[in-house]
């Protein structure tokens, strides 16, 4: 049984590899962070820097802002048109494209002109 120990390791490796690839095939772009709906409920409960995930639903390039909607809701309905809640993100630099999944790091700031009376002042926007 010289061969078998070596082969067994190879075998297990191959099984994990093949199944892992299969599993990855199911993995939609994934983002981590707090959900938009969650933060929206009580935005000022969050102090300092937080990470929020969501789908980009609209752009306000003149104000350097964009809107994100709830990640799960987006995954569930595959559309950015449906929700009643969103977070306004104030960002510097290039704005992400509409429909993209993003992870945003930033802090909540009061802003009566935005929906819910707050904006998420982003220090970093990562497109997934």
């Amino acid at each position, binding site marked *: 049984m010289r061969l078998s120990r070596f082969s067994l390791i190879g075998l297990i490796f191959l*099984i994990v590899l093949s199944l892992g690839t*299969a*599993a990855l095939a199911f993995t*939609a772009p994934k983002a981590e962070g707090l959900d938009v709906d969650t933060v929206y*409920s009580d935005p000022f409960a969050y102090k300092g820097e937080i990470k929020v995930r969501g789908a980009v639903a609209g752009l306000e390039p003149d104000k350097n802002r964009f809107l994100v909607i709830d990640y799960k809701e987006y995954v*569930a309905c595959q559309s950015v048109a449906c929700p009643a809640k969103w977070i306004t993100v104030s960002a510097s630099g290039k704005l992400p494209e509409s429909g993209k999944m993003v992870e945003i790091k930033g802090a909540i700031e009061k802003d009566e002109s935005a929906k819910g009376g707050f904006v998420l002042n982003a220090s970093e926007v990562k497109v997934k």
Partner: protein
Amino acid sequence: MTRGKLVFKNLTRKKSRFLFTIMGISVGIASLVTLLSLGTGLEAEVKKQSQALGAELVVTPKGWCAYEQISVLTGETLPEAIPNADVEKVAAIKGITAIPYLVQRTAIKNQPVTVVGILPKPMKQFKNWEIDRGDYRLDQESAVVGSSIAQQFELKTGDKVTIRGTEFKIQGILKEMGNRDDLVIYLDLATAQKLYGVGDKVSFIAVKVDDVTQMDRYSQEIQERANVAVVSDKQLIRSVLAIMGTVRNTLQMIAAVAVLAAAFGIINTMLTAIHERKREIGILQALGAKRRTIFSLFLYESALYGLLGGVLGLAAGFALSFFAAPYIEQSEFTAFLGSAQSVKMFSPAVVGQTMLFAVVVACLAGIYPALKASRLSPVEAISYE
């Protein structure tokens, strides 16, 4: 000398072929195990949460999609859409208990926490809650919290939590329920409605009926009186499973294809083995082996492939569910079920079903080769070189 020994020696004589065939089966079985453990875990979780809700019927605003219906079970924030007037209309129906919920969110130490606005008295009765510490008082400045929340954030009675900028004193901590109720801050309904600026609306109404055989009648009556939709707890579970369906179907396809490929792998391996061992079959026949003996020797070989492949596949499948499931869930399942633990490990039912399936498939795959071997004429087998 026993048949088992002979079968095993024959099985392992070509080590690489043996291992590759086993691998084929293992991959098939592993994907099956992954599928099963994902599915059962999820189903169990949904059932548990629906039980925790304690209602036979859920009254929701009209036009809610499955995602929102399921959020009833998972404690996600819900749009508030049923006015108090409708709540009262529903509550007025004889033979039912109606409990309104307003589900919102806040955060403690930047971690999201569910806030539920309730009618204190009916809710306590409805849920059979007991107080662990402090007392059960909910008003404009008092809140009651679930046991897990208290534990997680080290909250004591008398501590303050700030929700939407308003401070609340924690008056009581509930006894552990072992479900999602433990993860919630409870507020008085009217207070919560004002706090979140939702007017006189609630998210949904949980309904308990006195006579479960009359469910359809109650459901109809509720919809006649108020402008709402009604789902039963069973329908809720069904819509969860329907949403999971797409993911499961794909997984099922993969598992089916993999198992089928493995079955062909067994057939192929066995046919090759029989071709190589034609002469040996002849010897066995000359020694007086009957057809059914030859048949069973080769069938056992296939079955053993199924058994060994099944064991290895189970191990790989559980490992995969454990390591890869979070990724699968992230994209599809958790979208609906929050942080629900959707993988249930080492369920005896999964193990039993899988092993049975592996062996049955291997046996079915082994029938044709074994039949072929047993039908060889002795002279043909002996004269073969």
